[in-house]
């Protein structure tokens, strides 16, 4: 029995933490929301230099061939600073899919560049008034042409490639959906404002854009199952990222409750405050346990991996919204301002709540996996 991260994993965490501390933590996100993409680019370059981008890529493509668990400390650290950008989507959605379903040509073309930090990816899934269900995918890719509109595509403006979830056989079923690799520059990018300005959404529009079979990830019409496999890796990673944010929130309120004085004493002495912080701590540690286990279950193909990963994701996203709310309340008036970071966490928590799948669907996915 050993339920802990290894010394090597913790050591890697420290390098990442130190680097992000040097960049003043949430300063990167604040710069990005003000339209300064350079700060993010330079932060990503630095992380790539540390080796973050190559961790889970096969050695022949310039990676270290490590596993999901090895990425956990990195994700916790980037979650703590609400790092913007597409690191998570690129490394824990696209890379596992390219490695498992990509052709040799696709792997040779993309994996070395991703490992070097020179290529980022986004995913285009949602459509106007659609859900994350198969019926919602109506973006047309029949006859070698892309036609349609995707919305809420994350950070499309900085993505070199977009994985487009498209319909190659008309209908509302699982069959007929295909994943297509498209250079983002071939699509029309129309920015959309979202509440979390540290993640920039856009609509992507295609009008008779041609593509060929070399751009298909996996096989034609079977993209849905492939996407679900990729989401297992993604949701395990997302839960770890959120754990990093939760950890930071608990640290922020604990520090504030120790220094902020009212009625002649630190407010952390009042049980109304200290017990609320303990509740936050409990949710943090439970989220952490579920997230560590989810990544372990993914790596080891554990029989309960679907429900383990769904649980980690649901628990983390729900805890994130609650804890971000508590952080505003405990900080009082100053927590309501743009000056402190609380609002950034509130907004990111909402961003992730229904990101690449809804909470409701993941509840149902886990229940079904449990045989209920």
């Amino acid at each position, binding site marked *: *029995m*050993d*339920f*802990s*991260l*290894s010394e090597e994993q913790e050591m890697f965490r420290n390098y990442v933490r130190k680097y992000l501390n040097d960049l003043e933590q949430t300063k990167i996100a604040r710069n990005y929301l003000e339209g300064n993409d350079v700060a993010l680019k330079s932060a990503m370059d630095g992380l790539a230099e540390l080796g973050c981008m190559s961790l889970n890529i096969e050695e022949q493509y310039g990676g270290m061939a490590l596993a999901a*668990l090895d990425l956990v400390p990195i994700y916790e650290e980037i979650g703590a600073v609400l790092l913007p950008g597409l690191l998570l989507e690129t490394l824990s959605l696209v890379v596992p899919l390219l490695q498992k379903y990509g052709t040799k040509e696709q792997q040779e073309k993309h994996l070395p560049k991703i490992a070097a930090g020179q290529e980022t990816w986004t995913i285009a899934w949602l459509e106007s008034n659609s859900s994350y269900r198969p019926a919602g995918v109506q973006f047309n890719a029949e006859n070698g042409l892309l036609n349609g509109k995707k919305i809420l595509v994350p950070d499309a403006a900085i993505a070199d490639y977009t994985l487009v979830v498209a319909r190659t056989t008309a209908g509302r079923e699982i069959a007929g959906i295909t994943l297509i690799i498209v250079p983002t520059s071939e699509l029309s990018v129309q920015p959309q404002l979202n509440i979390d300005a540290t993640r920039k959404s856009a609509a992507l529009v295609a009008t008779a854009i041609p593509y060929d079979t070399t751009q298909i990830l996996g096989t034609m019409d079977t993209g849905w199952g492939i996407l679900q496999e990729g989401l297992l890796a993604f949701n395990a990673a997302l839960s770890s990222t959120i754990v990093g944010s939760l950890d930071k929130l*608990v640290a922020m309120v*604990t520090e504030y*409750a*120790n220094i902020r004085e009212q009625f002649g*004493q*630190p407010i*952390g*002495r009042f*049980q109304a405050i*200290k*017990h609320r*912080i*303990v*509740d936050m*701590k*409990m949710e943090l*540690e*439970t*989220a*952490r*346990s*579920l997230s*560590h*286990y989810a990544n*372990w279950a993914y790596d080891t193909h554990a029989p309960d991996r679907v*429900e*383990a990963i769904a*649980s980690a994701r*649901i*628990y983390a996203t729900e805890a994130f919204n609650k804890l971000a709310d508590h952080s505003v309340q405990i900080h009082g008036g100053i927590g309501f301002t743009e000056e402190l970071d609380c609002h950034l966490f509130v907004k990111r928590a909402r961003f992730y709540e229904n990101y690449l799948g809804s909470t409701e669907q993941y*509840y*149902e996915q*886990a*229940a079904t996996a*449990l045989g*209920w």
Partner: protein
Amino acid sequence: MDFAFSAKEEAFRTELRTWLENNLPQGWLDGTFPLVKDTKDYELFLRQWQNQLYEGGWAAIAWPKKYGGRDATLMEEIVYHQEMVRVNAPALVNYVGIHMVGPTLIHIGTEEQRARYLKKILTGEEVWCQGYSEPNAGSDVAAIQTAAVKDGEQWVINGQKVWTSFGHMADKCFLVTRTAKFEKKHKGITCFLADMHQEGVEVVPIISMDGHHDFNEVYLNDAKATDAEIIGEVDEGWRVIIALLMHERTGIGAQVFTLEQQFNELVDLARQATEDGESLLTKQAVRKSLMDLYMKTRGSLLNYYRNLTKSLKTGQPGAEGSMDKLLVSELTKQLLAQSISIQGHQGLLWKDDAVVGKSYWQDNYLYSFGQTIGGGTSEIQKNTIAERILGLPKDMGR
């Protein structure tokens, strides 16, 4: 990261499992064993079971071999808890003796005291209770007022204890008294290994909200004790109390595994129980609430394993035990409340009329209210976590 048990640990599991199959009373595993709580027969059955555990070498596995234990490792204790929960083994009547008093005697008792008490703890010949709480000293244990005064060769004890588990069955009491008044209330406390079968001790039952007799009041009117019955030093009993609490190496392992088992049973209940011919498990609201419990139950088990890993590495239990206790007791309450709630109107039926045999869910539900109070209330656990783990300031008045 590795969730496997070693070959040695699995061999230990097989040995215990085999012993249990051969030694549990007839009808225990299939649920036909007649068991009527709160009777003298029940007490005799529990004492007999304790003695069987002793004969088999399973009474106190964590104790050193030289005092009748097995020198069990932390992981073997975990396996022990898992197996005992799996068969829903009879209650350990000498829980206080095995898990608290015995280890404390081994740690800080005299060799004479060990010779006098330990074996009888193991065999169940002497059942122990603990005399901590008083009407005016609940969460604030150090506020105890029960007074012990030296009179010649003897100590004379007067006062009242309350919430004394096993008090009505107990032969001995780990009795906390005040022997002197200092400015700091933690000083001046003395712990006695007191005899319950004497004129000055009167035990009065308390009936809990589940209708059972688990607790007692204990009145001490000129009860007597000798110097030989003092554990630790006179006026320095607080240290003994702390030492005693530190002996729970595996924390609330048994409750964690019980919670896991109850969750699985609750899913079975939802699957089997029907409303208008439909399984409860097809109802959206039930699925959602069970998923919520699944996440939290898994989470608390995994938290426990993570804290256990830390204990294995450092060799001692940390303050995280308070987190396990808080989480598991609160979650147990939530789960058992749900078990009644999802049964709908039928959840009300009690005792022989309950839908599930022997009022299993109703009794456990009512019992669960005590879990967030006994052994330190949830509020006290939160103070501990806030102050010892998070580093928040201490409350006023402490």
